[in-house]
Structures are given as C-alpha cells and as structure tokens.
C-alpha cells in the first residue's frame, strides 16, 4: 500500500516540525481561551428586550381574567443563566418610535410587539379552535447580539404559548423550533465557530505539506515511481485527518476546561469535525495544485480561508439569498463552503442537543463536498504536477 508509505512519510516529516504542529494544534485552544477571557467566561451578558404590550386581555367563561401578554413577559423575565442571573432584561414601553430609537442606539436588542388579540387567540386555542396571531420582532440585524437575544426571547415565548395551548401553536413566531437553547453562556455560543476555525486551519497544513514536495522537487522523484495522485493525496490526507481529530479533541478539552458543556453527544461533533476536515483538506489539495512553492501555497490558501471564515457563518451570520430548493431545503451559494454546514451542525449538537438524525443533512452535505473537493484536488494535482 503506497498510500500508507506516504502517510508514514508525512508523519515523519511532521515529527521534525513539531513546533509547527504544536503551533497549529494550540491555535484554536488559544482562541477558546481568548474568547473565554473576553466574554468573561461564565459571567453572562443579559440582553435588553423592549415589549409593547397591546394585549387587551379577555374574561374567560369561568369569570377569571386572562392576561396572556403579561404572562408572556413574565416568562421571558424568569429565564436565567446557570448562575441565576437573568438572561433578558425586559422593559415595557408604549412608544414604538422611541423603542426603535433605542434599538438603533443599541440600548436594547429586540423590540417585541404583542398583538391586541393575544389573550383571545390563546383562549380560543384552549377551547379547541385554531386561530392565529403574530408576534412581531423588531431588531437591528447587524447587531451581533440580536440573534442571541431573539433566540432567547422566542424560546421563552414559545414555551409559554405551547404550555397554554397544549402543543397547538396559536402564535406565529419569527423562528420556531429553536427550543432548548436557553441557558447558554455567551462564551459557549462562540465555541462551534472556534471548532470550525480549528478545522479550517488544517487547510494551510495540507496545502503547504504538499507544496513542500513540489518545491523541493521530491515530487519529481515520486512521479518517476508512477505514484498516482490519488495514492499520494489520500496518504497525505489521512495524516492530516489524524491531526484534525487531535486538534478537535484538544480544542474541546480546552473549551471544557473553561466551562463549555455540549448539549449533544461529543462523538457526533467529532464526526462532523472529521468530515469537515476531509473537505477542507480537499480544498487544501486544490490550493497545492496551483502552487509551485510553499510560500505560494500559503498565499493562495488565504483566499478559501477568507471565504470559509467570513461567508460560512463561522465568524458571524451571513444573510444569503436562496439559489434553489432541494427536498424542502433552501440551497444558497454559501452551501458550497463546508464550514457553513459544519457551523450549522455543531450549533445543533452543542447548543440544541440534537442527535445524529438531526444533523444527517449537514453530514451528507459535508460528505458530498468532501468527495467533490477531493476529486477536483486529485484531478488538478495530476494535471498540474504529475503529468509528464
């Protein structure tokens, strides 16, 4: 098995560059640490919520008054972090323009408008009817806290209405089914992105490891032995996947040491990480195909790196239009970036505690992308470097 020999060669070469290996392994954990410091670790931020309560209330048949608007507000107020501090600071106001101004000033994060028929709809739902009403969420979407605060508020409101109407959703929320994400520290919310970041960094290793054989001419020697691009790249890739696994484990251990708790099973996160690293390494091979030297590989690798970091949602959310729809899924241009799916999957596992069946779509997408990128990498590499 020549690919095994290539794997061993990679391991041996890496052994002599231990500090580079150490540096790349330490990178993501270091960022975990930095984020932990910046976010104050377990010290949590509470998000300012403004509420305009138009709910008029209703007198029920048994003579009692139902004021669902006020009850919903209380439901938001009782959300707390693990340490007992409130997640949402809820303030009732009456003036919408004033509320919008404080959103723009970022004094508050979300403005929630409760409709006048809120209590009535809930009461009707309780008696078996199926009316609906809409809760309006207003927020500055460029405010990075918006998503977090909205998720929290929706969680609280949704669980309130569901408890009142026994599973019938009388109130349409902006985003439903995001339950379970309560009680995450801000630090924990950044962790999936950091995991993906750790995996993305492997791309540099991949591109540069291959470029070293190109630059030194040793690839010419291998070419004479009629080594195939597939054998060479799969051997190298296997080594890099091993590094990726170690990176993921080290990053997770670091995060765990600083108080990170995953809601879902860790092995699913690792599986996501491995498949992501395969596709990332595939991209690294494409980069290497275009490189003649190690430094060229480094410079070229920065391009996909930029896309991965800034367009995949690893660093911040990206609003992207839909290209087309497959099986009820909206596919957009950022879906060709493996980290997009990795971030989505890790968020589900870490924050929402989703099981394997919940991330099947992402795993399939990542596997498909891995195959595509790796195949392109092999094809290009053969064309650019192994053809006589």
């Amino acid at each position, binding site marked *: 098995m*020549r690919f095994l*020999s290539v794997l*061993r*060669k990679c391991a*041996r*070469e890496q052994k*002599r*560059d231990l500090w580079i290996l150490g540096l790349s392994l330490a990178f993501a954990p270091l960022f975990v640490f930095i984020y932990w410091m910046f976010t104050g670790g377990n010290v949590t931020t509470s998000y300012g919520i403004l509420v305009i309560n138009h709910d008029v209330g209703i007198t029920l048949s048994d003579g009692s008054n139902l004021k669902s608007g006020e009850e919903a507000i209380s439901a938001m107020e009782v959300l707390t972090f693990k340490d007992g501090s409130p997640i949402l600071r809820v303030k009732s106001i009456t003036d919408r323009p004033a509320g919008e101004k404080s959103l723009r000033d970022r004094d508050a994060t979300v403005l929630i408008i409760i409709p006048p028929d809120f209590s009535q709809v809930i009461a009707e739902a309780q008696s078996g009817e199926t009316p609906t009403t809409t809760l309006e969420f207003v927020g500055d979407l460029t405010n990075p806290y918006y998503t977090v605060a909205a998720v929290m508020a929706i969680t609280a409101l949704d669980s309130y209405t569901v408890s009142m109407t026994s599973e019938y959703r009388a109130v349409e929320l902006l985003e439903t089914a995001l339950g379970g994400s309560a009680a995450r520290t801000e630090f924990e919310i950044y962790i999936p992105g950091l995991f993906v970041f750790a995996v993305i960094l492997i791309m540099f290793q991949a591109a540069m490891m291959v470029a070293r054989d190109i630059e*030194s*001419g*040793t690839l*010419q*020697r*291998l*070419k*004479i*032995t*009629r*080594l195939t691009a597939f054998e060479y790249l799969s051997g190298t890739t296997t080594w890099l996947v091993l590094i990726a696994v170690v990176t993921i484990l080290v990053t997770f251990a670091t995060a765990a040491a600083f108080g990170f708790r995953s809601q879902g099973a860790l092995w699913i996160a690792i599986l996501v990480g491995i498949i992501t690293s395969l596709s990332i390494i595939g991209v690294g091979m494409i980069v290497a195909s275009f490189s003649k030297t190690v430094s060229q590989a480094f410079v070229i690798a920065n391009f996909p790196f930029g896309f991965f970091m800034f367009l995949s949602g690893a660093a911040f959310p990206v609003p992207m239009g839909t290209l087309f729809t497959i099986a009820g899924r909206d596919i957009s241009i950022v879906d060709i970036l493996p980290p997009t799916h990795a971030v989505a999957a890790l968020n589900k596992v870490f924050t929402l505690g989703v099981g394997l069946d919940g991330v099947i779509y992402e795993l399939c997408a990542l596997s498909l992308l891995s195959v595509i990128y790796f195949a392109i990498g092999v094809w290009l590499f053969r064309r650019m470097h192994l*053809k*006589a």
Partner: protein
Amino acid sequence: MNKVVLQAQGLTKKFGSLTAVDELSLDVYQGEVFGLLGPNGAGKTTSISMICGLLEPDAGSVSIHGLPVHGGQVEAFTRVGVCPQETILWEKLTCLEQLEFIGEMYGVSRKVARQRGEELLALLGLSEKRDKLSATLSGGMKRRLNVALALVHDPEILVLDEPEAGLDPQSRVLVREYIRSLAKKKTIILTTHNMDEAERLADRVAIIDHGVLLVVDTPEELKRTIGEGDVLELEIKEISPEQAMAAIEEALPDLSLRSEQSAAWQSPPPQEADRFVVENAPRDDMVSLRGINIADKLPTIINAIQRAGGQVGEIHLRANTLEDVFIALTGRRLRE
C-alpha cells in the same frame, strides 16, 4: 550481437522556439555504460527526462525492452532508476528513511527496502549518517545519497545525470568504482562533463550539441577518428629543427603546415587519418607534429631524421583525448 534494452527514436522536445532535443535516436545495449556528453544546454537532461518518462516528448518514442515508456506502461518504469542532476532529497527524512520510502514507492517491501538502503549507505560511505536528516549532510554526501536513491529498487537500467558533480576526489573514486561494479549487471546511462570519467567508465559515448546527436561510438574509436590527433614532440640533435622538419616533410607527403593556429581551433575540420600538421614547438630544439595516429609514423619520422644526419633525443607523445574529440566536435565557444 548485443541486445538492445532501451531504444529512443526521433525524440524531439521544443521549449517555445528553442529545440532542446532534435530527433534524437539511440540504442542502448544490455550491460553497457552509455555516456551522454555535450556542452551546457546541449539537451542532455532534457533527453534523459524523456527517456525516463518525466517529460512528454513532442515527437518520437522511447521503449524499454520494447515496452513504450510514454503511454502508461508502469512496468517500464520500475526497471529504471534515475539519479537527477539536481540533488533532490526529503530534507525532513533521514538518509535511511528516504531510501526506505522511495523503495516502497517502487513497490519494494519495507523490509527489503530497508536492507538495501543500509547496503547502499555502506557502499557509498554514508553509514554513519544513516539516521541523520538529509538536510544536515554536506553537499557531497547529499550527492551520494542522491545516487543511492536511484538504486534502492535494484533497477535494471540506471540513468545518472552528472553523478560526479560536486564530489571530492575520494568520493568521485568511490562513486566511479561503484558505478563500474554495477556495470556488469546493469545497463547504465550517464551524463557527465568530466571527459576523464566518461573515458574511464563508458563503453560507448554519444556527443550531442544543440539537441542534435553528433556521434555515437566507443571512446577509442572516437579518439582514433575525430579531433586533431596525437601530439608528437621530438628533441632534435646534431642538425637544426628546420633541417629535421624538411626531412620529415619529404618522408610524409601528406604533412601540411598549419597556417594559423587560432583559426584552426575555431572551425575544427574533422581530420582525416594520415594528415598531419606542424605545431609550434615548445622549445627551440624541438619539432612538434600533430595528427591522428601519428605514433604509427614514428619509425618513419625517426628514420628520416637520421638519414638527414640528425639524432632524436627526448620523445613526448600526448595522445588524443576524448576532450579533444569533444572540443573538435562542439567548438571552443562558451555556451550561454
């Protein structure tokens, strides 16, 4: 009749407007050492790259034991070992590790590759450096390792592009001896700028220039037929060198005086046998003659001088060398 193991036919390679190799055709016989000579940029490395399948020729073909090299015959490759002109090593692997690795790449088992690697390191004087990273070797040691890498898989045909470059005399002898020891069992193609090396090692040499094959023959035959021939210098006693010269001219009707030496160097006419020229003598009491196989005429010349009343003292004979042949064919001009 010797068996042809490697055959190149009409090999041509162009780099833009430059024709680096122009319709090169060669037959290399089993068990011979075949020297490929030519000035810098003549196209030796390009030819070798095409021969071992690294470079796709624009035209022509190469076959090893009748199997085409270009066109995916993996079998043809494992029979060839290549030592590139440039030292190409894995800097982060030790000497033994890279021998092992390349051996495995050629399909040799790890155990055998390791064992052969150790043997080669010993034979090429690198045993002490077995477990050292190749980056830490001296230039000459790297060159030797470069040669070793071509041999781990025990190839039948060995292609060496300037194996002696950058070696000290000890290493040169070592490598040369090693190549000579292989010569019986393997077919060797080597390029060199060292005419001495080629003369000592090669059974046949090819001289190419500007991508064109000029001659292919044994070094002896080339020396006998090409170049300005041997130089004969005679110390003349009793009579003057001029008188002696007159007597020699009478005895050798083909003798012609070289009109202008520098002109002769620039456009060297391949000399025909039995044409001799008179050279400037190194001493006042000497005559100097040059010609292919002039040594054969020595008795006639001495006879003529004695008949004219003279005596011959010291006799110096400098034989025609491969370098003379080379210069005669490729000229003196430096290649840019």
